[in-house]
């Protein structure tokens, strides 16, 4: 009997198309596993079982009639609850969103609908996606499927937990400062944070539009390629969506990776916990085994980048929330409110300086960091997987410093707008963690090819509680 939970989305779609299983069977199993996952991790915002089973029956009927199309036809998925769907209200992980239903689907949702995917639930996220740990003082905190005492990472917490647990093979998320990479690393799965502008944000909750990106989390790198093939491309609904051609991500999974130069900035990496530095070395050794070449590289001063991204993000997010913060401040959780409030004290000149400097710093990165390297490796988390209690600090005095440590290696990449693939490190029987491979602009296909080669050495796992 096929273990549906272990299949990639791509393999499951093939099995459904070949009638080796059915969409209905897959949806039932996904719902059962998702409910079990929720009991362990608090991953669900809203389960949509009846609608999903009805859609699965329709998908099976289409297969029987020879009319099923799309690379994910009949595959049950679930996504971070921040994407518009016609006639529904996305919670955004917050108490404040009870106004009016969406008039049309978010472009990312529409893309996966074109792929034939089903949606069985909406999933946990940090309040307004403004949190890097999975804490949410409205929905309750998300818990890690490997160890429920530990964080899932955020903000795409529910997607990462559900994917890691094998409830779904793939789900959507977003990344403004690390929100796809951190939960993927914490839960031991993969994610693709796309180049700014590669995927339309139309209909996705805005956090800080100058930095916001939409991407996906999956156990199998090949599923990230399948999803991106539908998600990427221009969109008149998002003026920031790039007009550049979209490569055939799936075909390019098999690109040779021999000789690709992976840059190591030892100064930046040395700021991680020694155990995390060892994980980076272990991944580098595997990448060298599959043919990559290790070289040195140097990013622009990392603390400067970290300050610049905050000078963009904090006022950008505060502006998005200005009306709600004035009229309904009590409806915000303590941590999000504390972070949003800071943005009101960033001067306009400083904000614009950070925006004006962005092109200069990106050019410097391309010339120097990527002068002799094709991709660069960085940690995702600075430390081994923290507990929920350790970071349960609400809006207290240490919130900026503690959250700053969590996103230390992720948010500067958002300032540069570059794509980043998260890969789980070998667990060696312990807790998960991850590294990110950062690429040149719009080099997602190259990153995915490297990730595919890596997974031949480090196959995806399904999470089971270790403690």
């Amino acid at each position, binding site marked *: 009997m096929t273990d549906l939970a272990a299949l990639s989305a791509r393999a499951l779609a093939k099995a459904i198309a070949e009638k080796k299983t059915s969409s209905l069977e897959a949806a039932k199993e996904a719902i059962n596993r998702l409910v079990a996952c929720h009991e362990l991790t608090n991953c669900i915002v809203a389960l949509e079982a009846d609608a999903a089973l009805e859609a699965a029956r329709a998908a099976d009927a289409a297969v029987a009639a020879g009319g099923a199309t799309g690379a994910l036809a009949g595959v049950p998925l679930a996504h971070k609850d921040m994407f518009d769907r016609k006639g529904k209200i996305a919670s955004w992980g917050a108490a404040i969103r009870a106004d009016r239903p969406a008039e049309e689907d978010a472009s990312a949702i529409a893309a996966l609908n074109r792929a034939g995917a089903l949606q069985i639930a909406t999933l946990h996220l940090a309040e307004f996606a403004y949190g890097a740990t999975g804490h949410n003082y409205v929905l309750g905190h998300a818990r890690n499927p490997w160890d429920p005492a530990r964080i899932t990472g955020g903000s795409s917490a529910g997607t990462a937990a559900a994917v890691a647990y094998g409830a779904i093979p793939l789900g959507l998320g977003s990344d403004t400062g690390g929100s796809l990479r951190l939960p993927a690393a914490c839960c031991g799965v993969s994610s693709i944070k796309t*180049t*700014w*502008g590669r995927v339309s944000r139309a209909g996705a909750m805005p956090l800080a539009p100058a930095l916001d990106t939409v991407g996906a989390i999956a156990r199998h790198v090949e599923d990230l390629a399948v999803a991106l093939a539908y998600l990427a491309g221009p969109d008149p609904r998002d003026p*920031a969506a*790039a007009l*550049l*051609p*979209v*490569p055939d991500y799936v075909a390019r999974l098999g690109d040779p990776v021999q000789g690709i130069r992976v840059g190591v900035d030892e100064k930046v990496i040395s700021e991680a916990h020694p155990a995390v530095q060892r994980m980076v070395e272990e991944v580098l050794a595997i990448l060298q085994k599959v043919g990559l070449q290790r070289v040195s590289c140097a990013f622009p001063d990392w*603390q*400067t980048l970290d*300050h*610049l991204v*905050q*000078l963009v993000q*904090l006022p950008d997010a*505060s502006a998005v929330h*200005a009306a709600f*913060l*004035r009229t309904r*401040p009590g409806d915000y959780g303590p941590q999000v409110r*504390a972070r949003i*409030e*800071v943005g*009101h*004290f*960033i*001067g306009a*000149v*400083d904000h*614009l*300086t*950070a*925006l*004006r*400097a*962005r*092109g*200069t710093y*990106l*050019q410097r990165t*391309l010339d120097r960091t990527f002068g002799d390297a094709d991709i660069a490796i960085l940690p995702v988390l600075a430390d081994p997987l923290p507990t929920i209690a350790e970071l349960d600090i609400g*809006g207290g*005095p240490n919130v*900026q410093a503690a959250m700053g440590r969590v996103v230390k290696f992720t948010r500067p990449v958002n300032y540069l*707008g570059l794509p980043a693939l998260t890969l789980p490190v070998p667990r060696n029987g312990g807790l998960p963690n991850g590294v990110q491979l950062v*690429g*040149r*602009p*719009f*080099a997602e*296909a*190259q990153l995915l090819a490297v990730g595919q080669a890596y997974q031949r050495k480090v196959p995806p796992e399904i999470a089971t509680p270790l403690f």
Partner: protein
Amino acid sequence: MAASEKEPAPARQVGSAAGADMPDEHRARAKAHAAALAETAASVALELPMSADVDEFRRVLAAGAKP
């Protein structure tokens, strides 16, 4: 008292966070954090050409594309 003789309403507190109802300790922390970031902005501004503009980022991103 006639309408024209009413005391003028107190001036509205100036500043974008005025309506945010922030506790004093939050306000102090927020100002301190913003001040630290402002130092970096001042330093970065010194090295930026006057011609640097906010659209340059998108141009560099597209020019550096490696699909």
